[in-house]
């Protein structure tokens, strides 16, 4: 692979209308000593010889595409995607548990890839296709993964369940015929306290047999 620059992140540098910060921008901004005024919307700041967009402090307008619908909100850049979903849009299927990417209860899909919504800033979730557990049901019918969870009694208190369902769906999409070892490894990013793993494992194994 050949890069024009020596830093691959340079090539992905965000433009001012694609809000969110690259790592490199962040490093530049963190060395800015001037006070940043209280404004909505990005402010261009000259740092390390370049113009970089700065959001916040204060709320910034943001737009999202969640479960095929568009949403707008004014949020502080420090707000996580999980908190935006839950507190701003009242889409509460994804749960807040560990709040630091350890338990998987907040798993959602971002451009079809499973992510921990507690560890994505809302500002980074803009202009991406966000899918939450709520949209897996179609026309009042449970998704096969959800149906398998029901039949195999794979939920108890149910607090980890939405995150697990989303993880399992993404896992099976990527591995339609997993071995039991694949299942053990692939579903290790979600934790349950009641101990529903036996039901979950059975649900996924049955789906894998059917080639869901």
């Amino acid at each position, binding site marked *: 692979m050949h890069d024009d620059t020596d830093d691959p992140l340079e090539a992905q540098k965000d433009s001012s209308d694609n809000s969110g910060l690259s790592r490199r921008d962040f490093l530049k901004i963190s060395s800015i000593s001037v006070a940043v005024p209280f404004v909505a919307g990005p402010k261009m700041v000259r740092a390390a010889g370049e113009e970089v967009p700065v959001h916040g402090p204060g709320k910034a307008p943001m737009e999202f595409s969640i479960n095929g619908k568009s949403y707008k909100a004014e949020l502080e850049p420090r707000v996580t995607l999980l908190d935006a979903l839950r507190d701003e849009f009242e889409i509460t299927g994804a749960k*807040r548990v560990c709040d630091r990417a350890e338990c998987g209860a907040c798993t959602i899909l971002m451009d079809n890839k499973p992510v921990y919504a507690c560890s994505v800033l809302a500002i980074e979730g803009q202009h991406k296709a966000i899918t*939450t557990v709520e949209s897996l049901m179609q026309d009042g019918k449970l998704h096969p993964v959800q149906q398998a969870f029901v039949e195999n009694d794979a939920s108890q*208190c*149910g607090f980890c369940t939405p995150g697990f369902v989303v993880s399992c769906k993404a896992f099976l999409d990527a591995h339609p015929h997993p071995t039991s070892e694949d299942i053990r490894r692939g579903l290790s990013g979600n*934790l349950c306290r009641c101990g529903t793993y036996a*039901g979950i494992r059975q649900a996924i194994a049955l789906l894998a047999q059917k080639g869901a």
Partner: protein
Amino acid sequence: MPDYAWPDAEHRTFIGKRVTRVDAPVKVSGQAKYTYDVHPPGLLYGKVLRCPYAHAKVVSIDTSVAEKIPGVKAVHIVQGQGSNIHWAGDEIVAVAAVDEPTAEDAIRAIKVKFQQLPHLVSDAEPPKGSAQEQGPLSMDNIGDMLDNQVPTRQMVSNIQQYGVTEKPSEDVLKELKDDGAPDPVLEALRSATVHPEAGNRPPTNYQKAATQTVGDPDKAFSEAEVVSEGLYGVPVITHCCLESHGSISEWTDQDHVFTHISTQNVSGIAGQMAEPLKIPATNIHVHQDNIGGGFGSKFSPDRWGIFTAEISKKSDGKPVRYMLERDAELKVAGARPSAYARVKVAAQKDGTLTAWQSNSWGTGGPGGGGMPPIPYVFSIPNQRQEHTAIRNNIGPARAWRAPNHPQAAVLTMCALDDLAAKLKMDPVEFFGKNLNLTKARENSYRDELAIASELMGWKEKWHPRPEKIDGIVRGVGMSFHTWGGRGHASDCDLTIHPDGSVELKMGTQDLGTGTRTCILIVAADTLGIPMEAIQLLIGDTNYPPSGGSGGSTTIGGVSSSARRAAVDARDALFAKVAPSLNAQPEQLECRKGQVSVKGDSSRTLSWKEACSKLGAMPLTVRGKNPDRSKPPDLTNSGVGGVQMAEVEVDPETGIVKVKKMVAVQDCGLVVDLKTAESQCYGALIMGISYSLYEEKVMDPTTGRMLNADMEFYRLAGLSDIPELIVHMMTGKGYDERGVIGLGEPPVISPGAAISNAVANAIGVRVPFLPLTPDRVLTAMEQKRGA
């Protein structure tokens, strides 16, 4: 007299079958609403400033800057200047703000000065001579003992030996009785010597409980043919509910509060909030649809539940939400007391147990805590127990599934397993030989032991403990457990409407145990209609009160009250319908959505037609448990179970992997076999988790919890789960006992069974849970050195 008895197997439609959980679809689709998900308009967000020190005095608090931050609606001092703080993470100041970031900013802007005081967070063996004899007991001590399920015999002897600090009034005694104090304890309190001066004695860190003696242990040990001595223990672990503790409260007018709260105790919350909020309990409306885990830690509104309502009041009554952050959840919202013991056990050469002696200690945090019920399950004829409770600054303990029993199982079953090894006996034979010491449960344990051995393949897998090991090794171990599980007080209202619709209201809660499903199973089975035809409403103080879900008391309570309500409603309906079928009410039956004359299918009405005979008004009946006027007793007490574990240990790394677990369990009449099995699977998994990973690690220098997150407070994951086999004992001998709880029993034995399997694999006891690689390697190293 109507027949309330449970139907026999031929007359059950749903009871005892494998019925799918009714609330699974809303849970898997993300529609189930938990307290954390409730979002009323105008919601304000609470945050809390917590004490960073394990023991400190609050010197000063300055909230002036925080109060001026735009968006901050209320600043509330929880524990003000001069307060003594006894654990790190305790609440000092709470704020409410328009959004969470603003609330966090406000917390950061508050300045609190603390004076640090000396702390103790260790629960290591008390230094020699440090333990002070337990003095006269205060009523708080008695309450702590009840919370910790200290055995009755132990409580009575403590009260008789040490007396009390105040004479308890009849009101206090009644309260204690309501909290579950057995009559012998109340009697002992009535006749106890009163030492009022002792109430002012400062508590010490180490408090020695009265020595318990049964038979003549000294003689038994001196005559013993084989004696085994060992050290065993279980550290403090936390509940780690995935939905943290917390609530949302608003004042709907000057003197009415509406609270959503994550609780195991919907009907009991208002009564606990009334006094601190200075309004009658009738003015507090409590609601909860779903709870994300409790495990014994969510019976009270807690201090945060009270101040959430208080900061709502200061914010013009607007709804305020405060759910604990994960670190707070692990630090302050639930810990299981530790228990350690030096145990000496004796037997004859043929394996007959003769004597037990234990010197135990452990901590339940600031309250100290009681001795687990040891020796557990096996009533060894000669016993002596000495226990020292450690009061320290690790934070308060709470009931954790089967309080004190998992600890008792480890202290007992591991000591007995070591004795069996010394006798060179197969544990199946050794425990089997002593099953007479389990008394009333002997026969069911014997059956369960045989089934468990078969399902584990014990005969093929068990081997004597190896002298030397080479490469990856395997071993098997077992444990026994017991629990009460009698149904709690429960009321419900069942209404049949003239259009045929049916609703059942009960102020209970479903912890994920299948409570909703089981109530519907009982009502539908009794009324002969589909479960979907009944609307079930739970989780609200507007419904008849039903007990808190603790101690495996829910299923016996809710199934009994639902059964009585459904039988009475059915019979009342029969009385209205009988004339139109030209029959007597007692000739009628309802099955498959029809009301008909028994043995005459020509005289039949559909359920809907039958209900139309009610006239204009619906019919409502109240079902209760207990209800002596409506026999028989539908619930019972006393269950048992046997569990076996097979493990694999890598002696190079010390890593333990559980390869297989078997749980054989009885619980009387099983209402739903499917959710009952899930309860056992879940308990085995939780057991693997606490056996291998879980420990609340405290830093002796700072007094803080070192692993207050889910990366370093490890829970077992899917990849840790081996083959699991669950066998429920059902049918004759079990069904006729009535419905008995199942939440606690299967979580008791895994620690002991897994520890015993590791000892069988590597040839040496790893004394303490969790069985981490460092502990396994240390135990093997010590054996090599010995």
